């Protein structure tokens, strides 16, 4: 071996040792510059070729190039290794505790009364009904007189009113909408009228001075009492399930004749009797009847030509039944814990 070869070999061994010992990319880059850089050792060796005897030059040149190739290969291999190691290290540093809680995002919810009315609306829409709404400040005329409830009528006892003036009051029922619809609309029509009503009752679990009703009315030629029953049957089955039984019995309301009360078999005890249904097996859900001829006349509709049915139910009460709520006051109280369940 020529002295040149011996020198090259020792450079090679030193370089390989250094590359193999290097621990980070920064140091590796420095090594690369030291050996392979423009002013690096290899380039200096190549420059020094001119001092090598002519006959040895090809061989030495070959050896230098071989070394250059070997070194760059070694450095490249080492770089991949170090990069991989650093990536792994970085990923490790980015490790998070995936069991920590997620960002708390608000989920918008609807009020239970809204959820109920949207179901009711869907059902009646399918039966050909539309929705109308009335005023909450009503006159005595629309709330009582026009509905065949004169001032002396005992039915007023159960509907103690909040008065605004001696002729204006907060409606005690959604039924005034019946009159307002008849005044504006020629038959045939089918409507439901959901809305807020007011009665001067002390708040208890079963009564709230502010509550909600859903009125319904259909007027056309030859609408029958059987149609009323059929409509209510369809409604009850859609809302409470096909397996409930229904009961239709006589009742009294001043603005319907004949009048009826509609009940479903108790959804809690399946009709066996429990505290919710007062051990009767039945839960009354609405009052109804054929629109009283006097009421049709007040609305400008000839009771000989047309007939109609009407019904009214407690909206809050439906919600109480469907969600098993036993205090009507919960709905307007809006306790966060109550609302968070819908």
């Amino acid at each position, binding site marked *: 071996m020529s002295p040149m070869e011996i020198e090259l070999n020792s450079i090679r061994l030193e370089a390989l040792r250094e590359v193999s010992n290097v621990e980070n990319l920064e140091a590796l880059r420095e090594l690369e510059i030291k050996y392979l850089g423009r002013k690096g050792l290899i380039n200096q060796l190549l420059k020094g070729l001119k001092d090598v005897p002519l006959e040895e030059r090809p061989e030495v040149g070959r050896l230098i190039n071989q070394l250059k190739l070997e070194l760059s290969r070694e450095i490249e291999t080492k770089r991949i290794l170090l990069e991989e190691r650093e990536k792994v290290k970085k990923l490790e540093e980015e490790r998070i505790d995936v069991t*920590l*809680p997620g*960002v708390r*995002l*608000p*989920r*918008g*919810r*609807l*009020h239970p009364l*809204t959820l109920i009315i949207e179901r009711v*609306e869907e059902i009646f829409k399918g039966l*050909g*009904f*539309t*929705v109308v*709404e009335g*005023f*909450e*400040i009503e006159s005595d005329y629309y709330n009582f007189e026009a509905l065949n409830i004169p001032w002396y*009528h*005992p*039915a007023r006892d159960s509907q103690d009113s909040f*008065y*605004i003036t001696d002729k204006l009051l907060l409606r005690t029922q959604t039924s005034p909408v019946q009159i307002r619809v008849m005044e504006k609309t020629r038959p*045939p*029509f089918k409507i439901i009228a959901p809305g*807020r009503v007011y009665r*001067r009752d002390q708040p208890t679990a079963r009564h709230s*001075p*502010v509550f909600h009703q859903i009125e319904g009315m*259909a007027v*056309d030629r*030859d*609408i*029958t*009492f*059987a*149609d009323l*029953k*059929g409509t209510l049957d369809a409604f009850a089955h859609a809302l409470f399930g096909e397996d409930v039984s229904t*009961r*239709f*019995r*006589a*009742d*009294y309301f*001043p603005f319907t*004749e*004949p*009048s*009826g009360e509609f009940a479903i078999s108790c959804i809690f005890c399946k009709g066996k009797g429990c505290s919710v249904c007062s051990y009767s097996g039945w839960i009354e859900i609405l009052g109804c009847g*054929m629109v009283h*001829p*006097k009421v049709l006349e007040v609305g400008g509709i000839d009771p000989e030509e047309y007939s109609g049915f009407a019904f009214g139910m407690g909206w809050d009460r439906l919600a109480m039944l469907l969600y098993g709520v036993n205090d009507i006051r919960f709905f*307007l*109280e*809006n306790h*966060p814990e109550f*609302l968070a369940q819908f």
Partner: protein
Amino acid sequence: MKILYSWLKDFVDIDVPCEEIARRLTMAGLEVEELETVGNDYLMDISIPANRGDCHSILGIAREVSALFDVPLKLPIRPEFKEIEEGLGVEVLSPELCPRYTLRFIKGVKVGPSPGWLKNRLEAVGIRSINNVVDVTNYVMWMLGQPLHAFDADKISSRIIVRRAYNGEEIVTLDGETRRLTTNDLVIADERHPIAIAGVMGGEESEVSFFTKNIALESACFDHISVRGTSKSLGLRTEASIRFEKGVDISITKYASDIAVEMILKLCGGEVGRISEFYPVRYEPVAIRFRPERFNKRMGLKLSLEEMESVFVRLGFKVDKNADTWHVTPISSRRDISLEEDLYEEIVRIIGYDKIPSTLHERITGVVSLPPEWERRKIIRRRLNSLGFSEVITSSFIPVQFNSYFGEFYQDPVESVKVINPLREEESVLRMLLSQALLTLSINNTRWGYDDFSLFEIGKVFFKRGEDYIEKEHLGIVQTGRFIYSWDKEIGADFFLVKGVLESLFNNNLSFIPAYYSALHPGRAANIFYKGEMVGFIGELHPDMAKALKLPRIYLAEIDIEKFPLEFFKTGLVREPNRLPRLKRDVAVVVPEKVHSTKVIGIIREVFGDILERYELFDLYKGPNIPEGMVNLGFSLDLRAKDRTLTQEEVEERVKYLKDRLTDIGGRLREW
């Protein structure tokens, strides 16, 4: 109305279990609310509808049972008496309030305790036994529905006068209370003063006691409206007034008296004196037209003529049959029946509502459209839900001290609506703004320990403008505490959060102008405009108020949503997406602090015109490098033309123009 099964059986021959009777009565509109066993008897508690005054008696219920089960009714036979000459005269001065009046004199009774069977029956139905005479009057009332009253005849000076009370006239009633009367009240008086309030309660002075020897037994028919009025104004409801106000059968006034007299003679002895009667106009039930074919058509039934007639006969009604139109005369106790439809109800009631078929009227079919305000409400609810806000529904009543809060929203003079007879004085006012209700709700939530909430309500507000009472639908929003948060970040309790919700809800079509509200933070309140019209407000609750109400920083907004037609929320015709390249250009402007950002945005929009697709304020900076009193606003602009690819030169030309325009407001463009 409590009915003893054994007592009922005095009037009908029936051998049906009481449970079945209770079921059929309930189905027929006389709801048996309770059925209990009493020894080897049954007691039914029946809820009587307002129109069925006739059912406030054993007889009335027996009539129903007789018709429902088609069993004969057994009525006590009217007794005959040997009368002595003595009696008391009667003068009715107000026949409009007293169409029939009878007074029977009975001499020499022995008042004492009632026999056991009488006591037991009365006590079973909830009436306290007093003495044999009074017990008989109650017994007959329960049995026939005719209230009776026995006076101690020796306490009456000569004759009875039925008249209106004088204003301010007083009487001490049986319960020992002094009652002050008006001319609206009917009294039974002797020549000196009232001895009973007609149809409501007797007077203490002429009460039958164990010392009473002679009695005057009153059986009368009083006007139901008058009795109801008196009973209401005195706050005095009695078994008698309950019956009179629902209407008693004018045809049994004397019959009931006779039945009672017979019992008194049997139990208390005595001699029967004269009966004085006032009954100038005899009541005759009116025949009502009934068209069998129309009945079937209206009810959706196919009953035969025989079936219809049979029901009327079972009810004791007279039927006069012509070919197509019948005439049916109800019995005199059934004053609730005056129209053809009332007769329809009688038939279906007696045959049972369960016999009605279940059909659907199919004439109106097809698509049903809902009113725009209904649809609008649904869209707003969904949008706010998707923005993370939850719905509440609050009472229309607000605490009276919030009465005028945020009232600056109304630019013309309006008043809140007050209830004249509230349940509680502090809840006598209807909300004029939803913010008033949401503030109330926030106080509750905070008190319950809930600090983070983001809520909305869509509901009515009420106010009085001039003489008009107005109801409008508003949207109210309240936000406090954290909205989005985790252990390392937090958004919430921020004016711009609530504003952002509104901007998103209304598609950035609102403008906000600083405003003064006494209940809002003076530097954090704005009126909201849409198309130049004021539609709402937004702001932080005034810190003084928040402190007084023990509330944290809380943000409120309210919008009159009736100002937005449904179309506003609906998607109309859509445009094709623009597929030309989009240029992004950031600009930073330095403007005097006093200049509102809307002013700057207005200039940017004007300068870039229709090539400005979107802009975003991404930076707001004051401090080093920015002159005192100035603020740096960084906007990123998305630029794109509809018809051509924008060139950098075109954009830079506009930026140059922007630079010029900014000098108008004392600002400049900040070069990077």
